[in-house]
């Protein structure tokens, strides 16, 4: 089957209203004539036999001996894997990580390895619940290893961290002790977007605050142009230095996977189809959902969204030495997501979906929404940003000041205390980061409950630093006014009002680009 590539549509008289995500809701928006709409390529077909592809990758790795050869009796084997922040939405069972882990375990058993531990590389993310872990590793692995030999990484467990050394840039490399002291570390990843994987896996996923602070700060994040291009991202450069340093001390066997764009289940196929090709049923669904969701109470609406499981297909399995593997992975991601765009525009429009990496089974609070919009969507480019310097960004999201006390306790305080003082990433970093990072209550919640680390909201804010620096104006359509104001943004009721509001920055007749996502698209801006 021939798959149509991504393309840029120019809105004309015949263009129907276009679908825009708005948190836990959908809108159909009629964009001004001449608006450019960036559509990702259609979903690529997956590999026919995933298990065979995995077996092949393990047997014929890049720049590395086959995994079979690396395994020997009496060795310490650790398998680390990406946590629930990817892929989004969750993947229908079996998760590709489960398939890989099962094969790795089978090889290990065959080789007589009996010291095996599995670690979720959640860095400063929240501990996953048993059910969440089980969804990733599968029932059989879970039953065999949980909880003693299958667990969440704990970045605050001093005894189980190992400071390995310092890079030539003076960066501390400190990761999970069990992983660091293993004879072999197998890392299993899902490379949802170009930002993931490579040396971002081990040196970040298994690290401590002490190590993370070297690249997760306002300085490097401002100089990561963009996160989706690791060759031009200072954050990635730092991670790469750490990864190379680590590779000298620890044998790492990287398994990376890529997925296609089928990020919604079949019955919601209109979400991934182009509007002018919608069937009558699709049109009815789109209309019904946009109205129905708006009328629904919060809880059932949230349940509908968070219960979604994506029918992803695996487009590639690559294994071996980290960098050699990652090159293959990135190429595969680009095949699915890259769209050529000709030049920048004055205004970038995005609709933020209900979920981001940090609110799985939870609520996207204003800080996460900012990170999602100005951190991720803004950075969905290669080369130059989609919007010109000092241009405007218009985002669709309700920005409800609603927080999960369980998952985001430090966010609540960050929002009401830190942002009340300043919204400048560097300022709040200097003034508040340390206090939040070392706060014993947040540390307690991170370690024993299901809370993101105390410093996590700062990282979210830093993600947006490049966007905030580049943009001249940020307006949220449908956003809560008070919450937007708290974060230093403005809110508009409608898209027309938002355009009116940014006219001071970009004029009355700006060029507009709408990034039609999800599914993900990386704009290759020429």
């Amino acid at each position: 089957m021939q798959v149509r590539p991504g393309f840029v549509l120019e809105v004309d008289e015949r263009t129907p209203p276009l679908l825009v995500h708005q948190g836990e809701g959908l809108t159909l928006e009629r964009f001004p004539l001449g608006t450019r709409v960036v559509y990702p390529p259609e979903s690529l077909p997956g590999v026919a036999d995933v298990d065979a592809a995995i077996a092949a990758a393990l047997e014929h790795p890049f720049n590395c001996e086959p995994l079979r050869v690396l395994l020997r009796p009496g060795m310490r084997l650790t398998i680390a894997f990406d946590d629930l922040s990817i892929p989004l939405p969750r993947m229908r069972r079996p998760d590709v990580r489960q398939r890989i882990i099962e094969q790795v375990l089978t090889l290990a058993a065959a080789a007589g390895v009996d010291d095996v531990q599995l670690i979720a590389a959640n860095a400063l993310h929240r501990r996953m619940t048993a059910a969440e872990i089980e969804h990733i590793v599968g029932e059989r692995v879970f039953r065999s290893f949980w909880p003693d030999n299958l667990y969440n990484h704990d970045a605050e467990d001093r005894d189980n961290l190992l400071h390995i050394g310092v890079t030539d840039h003076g960066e501390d490399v400190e990761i999970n002790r069990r992983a660091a002291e293993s004879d072999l570390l197998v890392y299993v990843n899902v490379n949802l977007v170009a930002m993931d994987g490579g040396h971002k896996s081990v040196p970040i996923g298994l690290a401590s605050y002490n190590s993370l602070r070297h690249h997760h700060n306002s300085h490097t994040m401002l100089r990561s142009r963009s996160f989706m291009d690791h060759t031009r991202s200072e954050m990635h450069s730092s991670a790469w230095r750490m990864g190379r340093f680590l590779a000298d001390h620890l044998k790492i066997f990287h398994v990376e996977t890529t997925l296609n764009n089928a990020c919604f289940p079949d019955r919601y196929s209109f979400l991934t189809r182009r509007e002018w090709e919608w069937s009558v049923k699709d049109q009815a669904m789109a209309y019904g959902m946009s109205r129905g969701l708006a009328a629904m109470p919060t809880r059932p609406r949230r349940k509908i969204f968070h219960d979604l499981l994506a029918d992803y297909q695996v487009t590639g399995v690559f294994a071996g030495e980290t960098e050699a593997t990652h090159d293959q992975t990135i190429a595969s991601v680009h095949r699915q997501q890259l769209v050529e765009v000709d030049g920048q525009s004055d205004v970038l429009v995005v609709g933020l979906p209900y979920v981001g990496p940090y609110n799985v089974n939870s609520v996207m609070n204003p800080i996460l929404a900012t990170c999602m919009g100005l951190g991720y969507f803004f950075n969905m480019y290669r080369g130059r940003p989609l919007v010109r310097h000092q241009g405007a960004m218009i985002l669709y999201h309700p920005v409800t000041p609603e927080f999960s006390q369980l998952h985001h306790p430090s966010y609540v305080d960050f929002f009401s205390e830190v942002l009340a003082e300043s919204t400048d990433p560097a300022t709040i970093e200097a003034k508040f980061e340390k206090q939040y990072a070392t706060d014993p209550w947040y540390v307690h919640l991170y370690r024993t409950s299901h809370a993101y680390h105390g410093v996590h909201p700062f990282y979210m804010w830093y993600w947006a630093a490049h966007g905030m620096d580049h943009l001249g104006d940020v307006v949220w359509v449908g956003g809560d006014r008070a919450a937007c104001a708290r974060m230093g943004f403005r809110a508009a009721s409608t898209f027309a009002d938002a355009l009116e509001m940014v006219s001071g920055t970009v004029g009355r007749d700006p060029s507009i680009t709408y990034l039609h996502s999800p599914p993900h698209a990386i704009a290759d801006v020429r």
Partner: protein
Amino acid sequence: MGLRERLAGRRVFVTGVTGFVGEALLERLLSEFPDTQVVALVRPRGSHSGMARLERMTRKPAFAGLRERLGREGLAARLAAQVRVIEGDLASMGELPADLDVVIHCAGEVSFDPAIDEGFATNLGGVQELLRAVRAAGARPHLVHVSTAYVAGLRSGHIAEGRLAHEVDWAAEQASAARARQAAEDASRSPENSARFREQAEAEHVRAGAQTVSAQAEAARRAWVAARLVAAGSERAQVLGWTDAYTFTKALGERYLEDSHGDLPLTIVRPSIIESALAKPFPGWIEGFKMAEPLILAFGRGELPDFPASPDAVVDIIPVDLVVNALLAAAAASPPPPERPAYYTVCSGFRNPLLFRDLYDYVRGYFLADPLPRRGRGHIGVPEWPFAGAVAVEAKLRRGEKAVEWANRALAHAPRSERVRRLAVDLERTEGRVAFLRRYSDVYRAYTKAELVYVDDATAALHAAMDPADQVDFGFDPACFDWRHYLQDVHCPAVTQVLRRPRDAAPARRMARNLTAGEGVLAVFDLDGTLVSSTVVESYLWLRLADGDVGERARELVSLARALPGYLRAERRDRGHLIRSVYGRYAGADPVELARVVDEVAADVVLRRVKPAAVRRVREHRAAGHRTVLLTGAVDVLTRPLAPLFDEIVATGLEVGADGRYTGRLLSSPLVGDARAAFVDHYARRRGADLSASWAYADSLSDLPMLRTVGNPVAVNPDVALHKVARGAGWPIEEWPSTPGEPRLMVASRAERGLFAAAARARVAAGGLSGSGSGGSGVVRVEGGEGR
């Protein structure tokens, strides 16, 4: 000869100089009669001597003109030179000078509904003491007694000036009134009444414990005694033909003077309703609120929909400066012969009548032209009175009272929420309005019943006899002014001035902010409802439903549902009983298992339900170096997730039996009501903490004793009863919102529970087979294949 000359060189004794009329009189004497000596009776108050009080008084607005004329020092010098202070009061006047020429007796009880003994002590006893003191000093002054026109009582038609026609025996009434208090005190202690007070107090305060109930019952008894004495006064007055205890006791005071003044010349001056000044000391001068002002203000605020008065009744109002002038004229006139006392009624009703309808029209016209501001939101509209008549107004008032009563009852049972609290505040306001209407409608009913006209021929003659110049300076002709002018240009602007003053932005609600750091300070927190939005029953459910299969959960729910009405009753009566009965259900549970459930499942629920503002506050207290204490009736394992926030956690422990399982009994009595206060008190003593600097946070009336033990009590999302108490006591009331969107009742999903069970089984199996500890478990091969 003019007034000034007549009074020059004479010595005038004035009582009640700190009152409304007395203050105006003193101002007049100081400013216009420098050659008249004044002896003033002033009660020393606190550390202020009588003279000091007078000096302070001259700083008030009434003396502004004089201050301007003489200068601050000049005024002080004038005061020192002209006024001699006798320290004393109506109960005991001390020694008076022998050379008094005139006594002007302004002092008296002016409230309409004094307790009967107090009314008599002041208005009759005061006159008796005055005569005694004057006679003891050997003085022979002219007695000018300030009474009221309304001593005439409930009569109709024209009332002439002169001795009142009644045969009431003042001595018998006085003796009875003096005994009334003891009788009421005794009656209030009867077993029937004691039981009634206790039951009332229990109905409202039982959750707060026995000490609070007792205190409430005693307060209710005192209030009952007070109300009974007031009722005794007004009922006795009305049965004898007076409007209220005020006019009744004033009338008997007059009668006593008439009977006992002997050879002293006696003049009785009877003003009607005294209101703000027409011209002196300045137009509109008024001090405190008199009879009509509360009504005028209520009307201006749009809170008075009608009034039980006939529109054609005469309202007899007289400006205060006219009364003062009449007093001066009466004092300066040649004293009447002792056997024929003089009577002067100072009123407006005969020569310049003001009909109720006109009063209403003028006041309404005033507010229509110049409405009161509604804070930041335009203006308040005034109602149009239908003058439906006393019966209709009374019926309406009754309906209002009934409605308030029902609403109160409904609110007491309403679940607590911010909306309910707002409703409670609104209701309290409505209740205040209805009570206000009731009071004024009762007070004025008697007055509006008395459709009479006071004749002031003698006063007119006194006025006519004055020098023409004095008639200008010291006139008291009630026909000399126009009511529209007086009401709209003088009186109403003066009365409403306070409400028109631009107010500062509303001060931020007193928040427990900027905690002073310090050792020896406790911060005590309640758990259920304050820190976490939950109840005892709910948290029990979290624990019990987290485990077990579907059938068990259903059985548990059904049996709980059956017991629930009983629990709700217990919650209202006795929290300790509720805790005991709910925790009895833990019988047979495994403590280890329960702790595991808390750690794995319930901790999530607790942390989801904990209020962010609460956690922040606890942490602020910790940062300030305070000792944080969690005080709760909840079962102790449930507090585990919050443990790191507190220095001390006091929770309910469950007894573990010989079989290692819970027996369903508590380790000790649950800490509720008074017991919490006692605990905090004892704990503070043990820790050497300063309770007056300490903090307590709670949400329910049952925590009232605990809140009262500390210097900084804070009501958090309070129930209606505590809300009322906190508002009354001026405690900070804070709204700590729970995180929106979190479901109220949450138990782990079945999938999760299944996983835990499976993992537990696997652990047992692994342990049993390999016998190895943690670390290398030996299980590498993936088990079975049925999981797909």
